[in-house]
């Protein structure tokens, strides 16, 4: 497995990077990444029904659509994203959640997962996940609220619009849960960067894992995909 500590924080670039890695890499990939303030809706969601677009605009929060299913999530510098890309004919997405629970347990955090593979501390959500399957390539990604601005999170995901009942198109509705930050549950303070380093160090301890950084060829192709798809209104605001 190659491990990528992705230095870019543009949501559109990063979502394009995921699709690029799924499509153009043949081996297993693990990527840690963060976005500057953004709201990311699921592939089959109605943006207007999920995002308070006025609040997002006023607070310079990017609105982006990802390739995976699931509901809308808020990202900022206090949120960490983990992506696993593998080749698997019969994926069991629960295994990735178990890996994340193991990562959390080394921080001394006893978290629980529900049947949707969301992760909770004392009933408060810290992580949501979603998946994408293209032929036998699968992508699982999850968020981890480490030290996010939770009031921005709640305000951004609070849309007053509801899809009219006459609408025939199938939209996935977000499942809302009360949230918390991991940092508030640690006995000793920890920087998010140190947490990232711990995760990577642990993974690199496994034989066959190595670090990988995007090449110039990679970033060129990712930027092209970003421009053609992920940054466009056509993709992000599709009705």
């Amino acid at each position, binding site marked *: 497995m190659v491990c990528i500590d992705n230095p870019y924080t543009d949501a559109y670039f990063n979502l394009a990077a995921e699709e690029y890695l799924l499509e153009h890499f*043949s081996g297993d990939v693990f990527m840690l990444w963060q976005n500057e303030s953004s709201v990311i809706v699921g592939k089959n969601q109605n943006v207007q029904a999920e995002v308070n677009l006025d609040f997002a605009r006023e607070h310079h929060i990017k609105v982006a659509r990802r390739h995976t299913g699931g509901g809308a999530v808020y990202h900022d510098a206090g949120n960490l994203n983990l992506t696993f890309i593998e080749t698997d004919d019969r994926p069991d997405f629960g*295994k990735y959640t178990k890996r994340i629970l193991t990562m959390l347990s080394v921080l001394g955090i006893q978290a629980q997962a529900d049947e949707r593979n969301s992760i909770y501390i004392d009933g408060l959500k810290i992580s949501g996940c979603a*998946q994408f*399957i293209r032929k036998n390539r*699968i992508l699982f990604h999850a968020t981890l609220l480490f030290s996010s601005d939770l009031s921005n999170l709640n305000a951004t995901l609070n849309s007053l619009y509801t899809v009219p009942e006459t609408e025939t198109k*199938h939209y996935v509705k977000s499942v809302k849960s009360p949230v918390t930050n991991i940092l508030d549950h640690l006995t000793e303070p920890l920087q998010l960067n140190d947490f990232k380093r711990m995760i990577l160090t642990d993974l690199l301890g496994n034989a066959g894992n190595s670090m990988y950084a995007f090449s110039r060829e990679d970033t060129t192709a990712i930027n092209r995909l970003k421009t053609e798809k992920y940054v466009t209104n056509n993709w992000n605001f599709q009705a």
Partner: protein
Amino acid sequence: MSIFELKMPKLAESITEGTIVRWSVKVGDTIVEDDILFEVTTAKVNAEVPSPVAGTIQKIFFQEGETVEVGTVVALVDMEGGEHTVEAESTVVAAPEPPKAVAAPALKEEAKWYSPAVLHTAKEAGISTAELETIAGTGYLGRLSKKDVSNFISQKKNGGSAPVAAPSKKLLPVHPPLPNFSTSTESAAGDVIVEMDPVARIIADRMLQSKQTSPHVTTVVEVDVTKLVYWRIRHKAEFLQQEGIGLNYLPAIVEATTKALKEFPKVNASVEGTRFILKKQINVGIAVALDDGNLIVPVIQNADKLSISGLAHSIDTLANKARSNKLKLEEIQGGTFTITNFGTFRNLFGTPIINQPEVAILGVGYIEKKPSVIETPEGDVIAIRHKMYLSLSYDHRIINGAVGGAFVKRIADYLENWEK
């Protein structure tokens, strides 16, 4: 003419239905194998479903927005040039969820299914079914694609025998897949099948990897630890009073080991490709058995810098944290040498497996009284002495017999002459 029934695939474990959000094809379209046909969504998963066959879309039963159960026929494909009717397909995707215990054999059955295009190509080239079974499939659900068979045929023509699928994508360093631990699926009535928990899987993987990475050699010395035993008897009450924890032999063994490691840098090392990396730090891992049957190796960082009481506290704290699942990541990584104490279970000696990427591991045996021949100026006498075996498994790529043997003997010397 033969008709292929295209069914809603089972996308992942625990998924029983999906909503079709987009058709990429319409009735009358000609498709080739692996073309994306439609997009399915569940609450969490978005999936693009490819066609396992080539042909023409004859009928589509469900419209965008409709939710369909796994196994339901969603479309019919009229296969071009098909001389084989594909009733077999109904056992492929539509098979009802097999019970857990027989899941593996069911998957094997699936792997033997071949698309008409594959069978046709194989037949033309005179490839038998037995030969087909030897080709690695790269298609959907690991099936053979027409390309796999064509590659096999051209290799066969060129005199090549190894069926290797040509990778078309960017190649990355990928660890060779581990043998499937669950291949032996035959089980008799009353057998219990236990799924490995994640930790057990990691342990299994690492043990196998270690044996595949390092040529292991084990050597054993017998140590007269009588002095050490009396030292402990003299100090244990006072130690418990002053330090609040019991005094056992392990801190002394760790101290003797770190002294020996300083003299034998090749034992405190790693092998990376064609290089030896001699580690500056001496971080000693202690294998701890957990109540759930698993094993963890917390690490005493810079063990050579600690006193006996420092080592005792460090071992005690790490073992307690390990058993209560409170170890932090930095407490289980960075080890440069490992000690496993199977003497606890009254075992004498063993052949422990090296904890990668380290190059040696010391097994500590049970201490017991034995009659021993002691040489004195007045002649040999038989005396009752406390004896223990130390077993050292080492990586013969970096440590040869002379170094490995001398290293473990040096630890023994320190312990035999223990005076504090």
